């Protein structure tokens, strides 16, 4: 988390490889799609503040220009011609974020105003459009540039940042989000790589309430049950540490049906009393130490 000159606290937002820094009050409001194509928007509790669209396309001449023209046409059609759209200068984007991208900045003004950045990423083959929206208020160029300047659609370390609602972790970039369950009090990310390898990362709020019902040592058995896979053999549990917290590391062989493929599920569960949260990372069918690796990237209070 970083603080701007105007003392706005910024926090990372990460979704399907796209990441940027946004004011802490902006939270994910809407999402759709997957890694190849999708949409996400963030609001500040009242107005929509950020929109991100992405689409995997084959690069061709004037791809970016064409996409912006089409977008301009659709905006003007929706606004019945009362909208001003103009190209901007993407020079505010830091040099390190410009490499490997064809960039274009734009802005438009109608009932709502927006400062936007679009790019084609040669590394991911995705066309991305990010907009910071200002409704009924003046355009804060510095804020827009701060957010847009931090936007990128992949990292160079082979991992993807997933960051919403104050919860963030890094997962290998070949794991795609299969099913997010972002329910109040419980965030669950189910990621999959290929047909066998999977990763599940969870954050449970109100930990003290949950731990009154079952101690952290009792969680692994319940978590394995919730996977819906038949356990084979005994559940192995041992004490571990994640950051400054005592954790419970567990391993369980599981299989589906009599002839089903067997795999080893490894996981870590720990609690952060200061944050009143329980964190769970479980993995199967992939690298043995994946759960440990992912758990090490989760930061709590």
């Amino acid at each position, binding site marked *: 988390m970083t603080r701007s000159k105007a003392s706005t606290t910024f926090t990372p937002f990460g979704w399907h490889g796209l990441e940027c820094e946004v004011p802490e009050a902006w939270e994910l409001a809407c999402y759709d799609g997957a890694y190849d194509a999708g949409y996400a928007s963030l609001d500040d509790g009242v107005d929509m503040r950020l929109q991100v669209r992405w689409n995997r396309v084959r690069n061709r001449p004037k791809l970016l220009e064409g996409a912006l023209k089409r977008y301009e046409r659709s905006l003007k059609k929706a606004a019945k011609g009362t909208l001003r759209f103009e190209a901007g200068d993407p020079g505010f984007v830091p040099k390190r974020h410009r490499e490997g991208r064809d960039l274009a900045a734009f802005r438009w003004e109608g009932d709502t105003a927006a400062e936007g950045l679009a790019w084609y990423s040669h590394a991911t083959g995705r066309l991305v459009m990010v907009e910071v929206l200002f409704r009924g208020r003046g355009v804060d160029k510095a804020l827009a540039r701060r957010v847009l300047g931090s936007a990128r659609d992949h990292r160079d370390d082979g991992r993807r940042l997933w960051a919403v*609602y104050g919860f963030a972790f890094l997962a290998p970039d070949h794991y795609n989000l299969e099913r997010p369950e972002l329910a109040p009090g419980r965030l669950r990310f189910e990621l999959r790589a290929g047909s066998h390898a999977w990763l599940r990362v969870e954050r449970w709020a109100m930990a003290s309430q949950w731990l009154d019902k079952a101690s952290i040592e009792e969680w692994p058995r319940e978590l394995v049950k919730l996977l819906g896979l038949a356990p084979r053999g005994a559940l192995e549990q041992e004490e571990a540490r994640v950051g400054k917290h005592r954790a419970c590391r567990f391993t369980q062989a599981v299989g589906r049906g009599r002839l089903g493929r067997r795999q080893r599920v490894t996981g870590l569960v720990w609690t952060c009393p200061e*944050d009143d949260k329980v964190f769970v990372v479980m993995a199967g069918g992939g690298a043995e130490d994946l759960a440990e690796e992912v758990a090490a990237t989760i930061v709590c209070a």
Partner: protein
Amino acid sequence: MLGSVPRLNPAVRWNELDSGQTLVVYEKGPFGPVKWLRKLFAAPEVTELLLDELGAKVVGQIDGRRTVGDLIAYVAKEFRLSRRESEVALLKYMDMLGRRNLVGFEVRGTGEAR
């Protein structure tokens, strides 16, 4: 909705229990054929709802002054949830209380209760 002020139905009995839970005792809706059937089968006119500790804490914050927005902020702070998580949870909870006529909502500025 966020600016409206929830008010507890005065016809409902809110019994705070030592366990931190709240036992809500209220009369079932008095309208339509359901009431007639209830009489026919001598079904009880009164029903009870047990609010858990968390639900009771939220109800305890309803004082006729705090808005739904204030309650969302309370839930976020008290249970260390993000704004969006507390918003979704609280609106769902208010909807449940509203459907049972346990809580009404006063829209500020008009003094109109719904």
